[in-house]
């Protein structure tokens, strides 16, 4: 009798284990390193649960915390077109999987777009800089991504690759909500295009964090502006981060600067417009009231930095 029970238990357990074997197989995570964009697009399109790996600074954290369970991890870093910084007739091109540290070390790009570099250099520690990428920072789709407001302000455009397709999309059109992007299945970002900066132009990025480093932005503001020979602002773009479900391009804030000398009155109007554009939440990093107020403060300070740079050019 007892042995019969034991046999029954044994068979139940072995059935259970067989099921687990199958589950294990199903849970197995594959790792691929495509060498071309089309190979990568095909892998991403063909597989449910395919995740892109660029710098890994977000994906690996989510993986360890059990927030994601990829079936296949597609490492894009072996695709030559996703690496490096180039300059051509259209301006600057940055491979989407280029490490931020590498971009920060590029003297000519730093001279051209100091605000963009300020933003991307604020992504995490020195160690994170060695891995984090612009493509990853954007596609992680955090409202607080540090590189995004400055890229938006700079008018950066993404090269989006898909299965048999390529298209260009403005940075501000990629993130559609926290953790969500407008990219279709199989699509990924290959690179970022930035124009050559115009004469008498300047850009800047500032963020607020409780410490001096290592925090996620409570508020981030990128400002890019162009002056005419008389010092009047002819063009401006303002990007805001961490104050709404997505980073924002704030036309009203830009309007506050255009046609002015970026004087105190204009800066005050800019701050008011930036604060008015905020639709933040209360969370562990800041309150609604705090974010709205500080967005205005940082918009003003950031615009001043951009102005200083434009005046020196």
């Amino acid at each position: 009798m007892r042995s019969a029970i034991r046999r029954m238990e044994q068979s139940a357990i072995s059935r259970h284990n067989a099921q687990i074997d199958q589950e294990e197989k199903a849970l197995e995570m594959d790792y691929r390193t495509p060498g071309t964009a089309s190979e990568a697009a095909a892998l991403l399109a063909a597989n449910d649960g395919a995740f892109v790996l660029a710098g890994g600074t977000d994906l690996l954290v989510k993986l360890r915390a059990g927030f994601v369970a990829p079936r296949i991890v597609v490492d894009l870093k072996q695709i030559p077109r996703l690496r490096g910084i180039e300059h051509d007739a259209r301006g600057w091109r940055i491979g989407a999987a280029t490490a931020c540290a590498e971009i920060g070390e590029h003297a000519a790009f730093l001279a051209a777009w100091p605000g963009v570099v300020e933003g991307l250099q604020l992504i995490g520690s020195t160690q994170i800089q060695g891995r984090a990428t612009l493509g990853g920072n954007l596609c992680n789709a955090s409202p607080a991504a540090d590189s995004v407001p400055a890229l938006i302000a700079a008018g950066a455009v993404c090269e989006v690759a898909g299965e048999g397709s390529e298209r260009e999309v403005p940075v501000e059109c990629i993130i559609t909500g926290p953790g969500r992007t407008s990219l279709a299945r199989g699509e990924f970002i290959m690179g970022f295009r930035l124009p050559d900066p115009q004469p008498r132009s300047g850009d800047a990025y500032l963020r607020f964090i409780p410490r001096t480093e290592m925090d996620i932005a409570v508020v981030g503001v990128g400002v890019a502006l162009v002056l005419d020979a008389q010092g009047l602002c002819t063009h401006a773009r303002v990007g805001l981060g961490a104050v709404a479900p997505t980073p924002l391009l704030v036309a009203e804030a830009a309007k506050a600067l255009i046609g002015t000398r970026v004087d105190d009155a204009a800066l005050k109007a800019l701050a008011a417009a930036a604060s008015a554009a905020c639709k933040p939440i209360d969370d562990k990093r800041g309150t609604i009231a705090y974010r709205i107020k500080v967005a205005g403060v940082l918009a003003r300070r950031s615009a001043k930095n951009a102005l200083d740079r434009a005046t020196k050019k």
Partner: protein
Amino acid sequence: MNDMTTPGLANKEMKIVGTRPLRPDGVDKVTGRAKFGADIHVPNMLIGRVLRSPHAHARIQSIDTSKAQALRGVKAVITCADFGDLPSEFIPAGEMMVNFRDMTRNVMAREKVLYEGHPVAAVAAVSEAIAAQALQLIEVQYEVLPHVMDVAKAMEPDAPLLHEDMYTIGVEPKPAKPSNIAKRVEFGFGNLEDGFAKADVIVEREFATQPVHQGYIEPHACLASVSEDGQSELWCTTQGQFIVRAFCAKLLGMEVSKLRVTASEIGGGFGGKTVVYLEPLALALSRKACQPVKMVMSRIEVFRATGPTSGAKIWVKVGATKDGRITAADALLKYQAGAFQGSPVQPGAMCAFAPYDLENVRIIGFDVVVNRPKVAAYRAPGGPISEFAVESVMDEIALKIGMDPVEFRLKNAAKEGTRAPYGPKLGPIGLVQTLEAARAHPHYQVPLKKNQGRGVASGFWFNIGGETCASLNVGEDGSIALVAGTPDIGGSRASLSMMAAEELGIPLERVRPIIGDTSSLGFNFLTGGSRVTFSSGMAVVEAARDIIRQLRTRAAKLWEVSAEEVEWADGHARLLGEGNTKSLSLAELAKTAGKTGGPIIGNAAINATGAGPSLATHVVDVEVDPETGKVTILRYTAIQDAGRAIHPSYVEGQMQGGAVQGIGWALNEEYIYDDKGRLQNAGFLDYRIPVCSDVPMIDTVIVEVPNPRHPYGVRGVGETPIVPPMGAIANAVSHATGVRFTELPMSPPRVLEAIDSKH
């Protein structure tokens, strides 16, 4: 008990004590060779993982582990059923009064889960992945109960009750109803009414602090191996291998001699590694699986389920005359204990006004349970919380009567013979010296600019002694193996070797220190209470003197004289008397030890008493951004009475580290829970401890008022440095902004709100 005083100590010229040699364990630590808790692997090892409660408060209706047990690769699953229940009584365990009913429930929930992260089951499996999978197969049915996180709310009569059988201790008659108030304590003397009647100025304020975590960088880790006959080995990161042995043996119903505990190198503790979490679970899993089990906490688990120290609500009222003499001081402290009784409200109450010489004083404290992890000791447990509030009020009084805050403190400073608020008279202490050093320091004269402020605060901590053993084994070449029983958490192998070498009169390099396991020495209380350089130092000195007695006897035998005719000086036995030049070095005596009676070892087994309080005064300058509320620390000077600094670099290190932990506590560190009692910032990203770029150099001044009850005058320095920072910084921020800050942390949103509401 032990008379270890050395008359004329101050005049004795030191060769090693007070210098700054390289630490003996240093090379291992800069090369990655040092083995910390998670750094060992043994054959046939399993990986253990813990299933934790997702609820802040719930009744456990059932736990079904059958599916997890059946999973291939799972070797053991345990729940509370694997631990015997223990009655609610305080019994001494390793020098502490411990309620094992609570401890067994904290390591593994029984009837209820009392905080998010409370363990409910654990598994051991052949791999981490299988262990993780097994956890998902354990089915727990909960009846979710209302929870309470706030200390004041938990004290209300209709608050959700954590323990149906908790009746407040310390009130007569015993309360008729159970409550979340575990204990009421009161200290003080004099007549408050009379005192306040004499005051020209009275300041009365309420304060709030948040729980803060010790924040050691090394997560809890251990490896347990129980053999079929019950012989057990445990390797773990702990502040006290003997305490771990005492706790685990009791929880698992083992004889202490069957359990050998080895302390790994410890990657920070600050009080947080004075309790057990994983250790009894790993032993229980290993006992069931008959294989070694390694367990390592994730950072998330560390935040959810270990430490922290209490959050609190505090009320303080102080009266003083116009000329700056305090006439009365009153305080009410409500400390969160976490899920089980035992907040540090008692020492917090004892310390609150201890830096002051008072005639009329009262402190009342409440120990209150809430649905948070059980608090653990954290550097000067209880002191920083109450003294933050008191130091803020003292600053405000000084401001009101127009007196310099250092001057005000000097007028009221406790000194030798002052009656402490907890009763007895104090021995020699160095508070006045730290205040005078603060006033004389160039920092105190630096002019301040707009939006900048300077704050001052003093702090008191007791320091402790306790049971301690040490042995010194003389090798055949005269080198010394030093065995201490207190884990080295910040350089104590250096200070202990230095005292041994100084006593014996030999070069430091001749002493090699190790931390012994629980079978190599008699019982040692843990590394904590700033006791190691004091107590283990005392034991080492006694062991060294034991050796010297033996060496003199050996030399006397060789010279055929009596031991009284032989003195020990500069590492040599010397024959006393006019014209005698006979001398034998330690190495020479060691070489012939076998022929003169056998190997020479020095032992000490003591209960160290006579620990002296260490007092400190900190000065800090801050700048506040009036538009964002961000506080920047511009300058920081920490001044402390060390009694005697054996290795000044490591004394400074304690002062600097404590100050920076205090900066974190003051400005950014806090626990953020959602409305269901789930922790929202269980990681170093959003639990914001100071990073390197957040702080300036921390200037230090070591004051030395020797402790007459220690052979080298040592007081112990590790804890006091975290007492003054919160008060000092709050005072500085208040002066920079013109708004009095009474809530920690002074995070940017809170500071900005206060500045804005001023206008």
